[in-house]
């Protein structure tokens, strides 16, 4: 369903014959992929996202749990080069907050304090961290600090506990994006396993798998996900919950992939080169791995890429409902849990930033998958 979504550019009408002759399928695919500019951009965005969230400890100025008690629900800061009076600084800076709790409205009102100038420092020492729980460090990509060692920067604002939204978005991305990857790994495994068996062996195995796929595809997934995540034991650590949620998300997601794999297998079974391989007496495994695998690997990867968004959106929804990932681990969904109603949003709209990143990541995966599909399929111009 979701794989048929995206743009496929017009087939290239004519290649000069000699060029075609000398390109391996992989080179051909790469050529086609490069031509899909949006997909290329998406790939770059995703790589950056995975890099930044992978090294979250370094890129995030603060830890997920660090609080700035003086800045509860503080709005995003502007990074500036010019002071209010027009003085130019080569080094960008932010103004510190002035907090005033309005006696009438109980609102925390923040204003920029022109006295508090906190210049941005790159590759500077800040909070200590343990990268992947292995390497200790305190160098951050950037922090804001004046010469007295004071300063803070929250350029996406802070949440109701005074935690830096930007940092939390980065850490949340680590969970949400990795759940996408991990979930898809599992999905891939299940899909190839079931689809492969069904397609290659056929017969009653095929029929059973087909039926399973049909059943799973006709289930409304979210309620089932809800049922399963709600059943995760209370005493599990956040990390185990994380894996539990991942497994649950991929439990229902493998069907599209299995269908595709099965279809490819069925088609390939009868294709000349496989029959040829069979005729010259290649063993079954050899047939599968040497001849059939490479041929549909590209499709599988494409389908998998297009399935990542489903997993990310699933995690986000469950966590938003408070039954997915549990604090202290944060994900994009967990971050948006606070935004349960529109008036909270109207007071602190910046707590929706994680949503923006969800949209960007999902869009990037969709476009990338689309580009991959076109690239993987140089000869098949039309059809699904």
């Amino acid at each position, binding site marked *: *369903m*979701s794989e*048929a*979504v*995206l*743009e*496929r550019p017009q087939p290239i009408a004519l290649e000069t014959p000699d060029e075609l002759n000398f390109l391996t399928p992989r080179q051909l695919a790469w050529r086609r992929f490069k031509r899909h500019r949006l997909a290329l951009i998406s790939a770059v965005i995703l790589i950056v996202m995975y890099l930044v969230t992978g090294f979250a400890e370094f890129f995030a100025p603060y830890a997920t749990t660090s609080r700035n008690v003086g800045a509860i629900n503080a709005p995003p800061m502007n990074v500036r080069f010019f002071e209010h009076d027009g003085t130019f600084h080569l080094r960008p800076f932010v103004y510190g907050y002035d907090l005033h709790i309005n006696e009438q409205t109980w609102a925390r009102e923040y204003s920029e304090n022109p006295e508090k100038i906190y210049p941005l420092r790159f590759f500077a020492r800040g909070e200590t961290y343990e990268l992947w729980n292995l390497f200790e460090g305190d160098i951050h990509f950037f922090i804001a600090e004046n010469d007295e060692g004071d300063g803070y920067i929250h350029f996406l604002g802070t949440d109701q506990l005074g935690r830096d939204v930007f940092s939390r978005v980065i850490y949340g991305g680590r969970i949400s994006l990795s759940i996408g990857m991990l979930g898809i790994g599992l999905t891939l495994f299940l899909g190839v396993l079931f689809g492969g068996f069904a397609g290659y062996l056929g017969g009653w195995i095929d029929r059973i798998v087909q*039926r*399973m796929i*049909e*059943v799973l*595809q*006709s*289930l*409304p*997934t*979210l*309620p*089932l996900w*809800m*049922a*399963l995540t*709600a*059943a995760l034991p209370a005493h599990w650590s956040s990390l185990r919950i994380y894996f539990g949620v991942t497994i649950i998300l991929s439990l229902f997601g493998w069907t599209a992939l299995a269908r595709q794999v099965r279809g490819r297998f069925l088609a390939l079974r009868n294709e000349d080169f496989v029959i040829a391989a069979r005729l010259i007496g290649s063993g079954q495994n050899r047939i599968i791995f040497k001849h059939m695998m490479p041929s549909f690997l590209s499709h599988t990867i494409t389908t998998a890429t297009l399935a990542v*968004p489903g997993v990310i*959106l699933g995690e*986000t*929804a469950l966590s*938003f*409902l408070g*039954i997915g990932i549990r604090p202290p681990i944060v994900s994009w969904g967990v971050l*948006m849990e606070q*935004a*349960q*109603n*529109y*008036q909270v*949003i*109207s007071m602190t*709209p910046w707590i*929706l930033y994680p*949503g923006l990143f*969800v*949209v*960007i*990541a*999902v*869009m990037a995966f*969709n*476009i990338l998958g689309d580009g991959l599909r076109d690239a993987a399929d140089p000869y098949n111009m*039309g*059809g*699904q």
Partner: protein
Amino acid sequence: MLHYVIKRMGTMVLTLAFISVIVFVVIQLPPGDIVTSTLERMEASGMQASDEYVQNLRARYNLDKPLYLQYLNWIFNFVQGDLGYSYIYSKPVNELVWERLGYTLLITISAVIFTWVVAVPFGIYSAVRQYSIGDYFITVVALIGLATPNFLLALLVMFFAWEWFGISIGGLYSMEFRDQPFSIPKLFDLLSRLWIPGSVVGMGGTAVTMRILRANLLDELNKPYVVTARAKGVKPIKLIFKYPLRIAINPFISTLGLLLPTLISGEAIVSMVLNLPTTGRMLLQALLAQDMYLAGSFLMLLAILTVVGMLISDLVLAWSDPRIRYE
């Protein structure tokens, strides 16, 4: 056609049987059951329940039987319309679910209608005017729509309705009708508000179907029979509507069937955000409280809704595409 309908119905029953097993397993997963919790409460208040009492209690809920018999009992009662007893509400599940399910259905249907009304014209436009500014615009909007989580969209819609118009759009009825008995004006009020959840729920699906329609249409536009028709002298507008669209709409119909699970999932979460009196919130509550009959009934009824929806979409498809019904 009749043969196809019967065959398709048979498949549906089989599918539902499988689903009921899955649902049963899922609701059995959390530890504890209604009897253990009753006993715990009794013991907590210092009562020693006699073995006989426990056995009676277990027998009443069929918990003394092996699991497969429990399942059969559950499904047998379910088919007869006895959905069991919700112990968090101390009420038969029947009293709790139907009104909510009705609203779920209403919203899902409006989402389907929204999907059609938006996806068909824009999909056609996008395909026929491929690579035009309009096509790019629609493509971008669809991409964003596809990538935005339902609940976020619901929140944003509520937020902007509040920020720009100062109206609060939670609930299915506007303020003045909330307390009124059901009437024709109230029905209109309901319909006039339905488009909000309908469009929010349908957004992702609309994006998907629009892109599918566009891709199908583009594929079909280059097919030989279109050229044949053109060579016959059929004029452009009629050409698109009579031939490629007619064929492109078929996978589109089946897509709508496949979309139903997504729509119902989306409805569950959107209604929670928009505070609609549908299944979402109560299901969540039932799940968290491990109220298994209530949760199981909701899961099962939602699945039935989906499967029947898919059946309808398949029948429509068969009606629309002769190749299927002649298979």
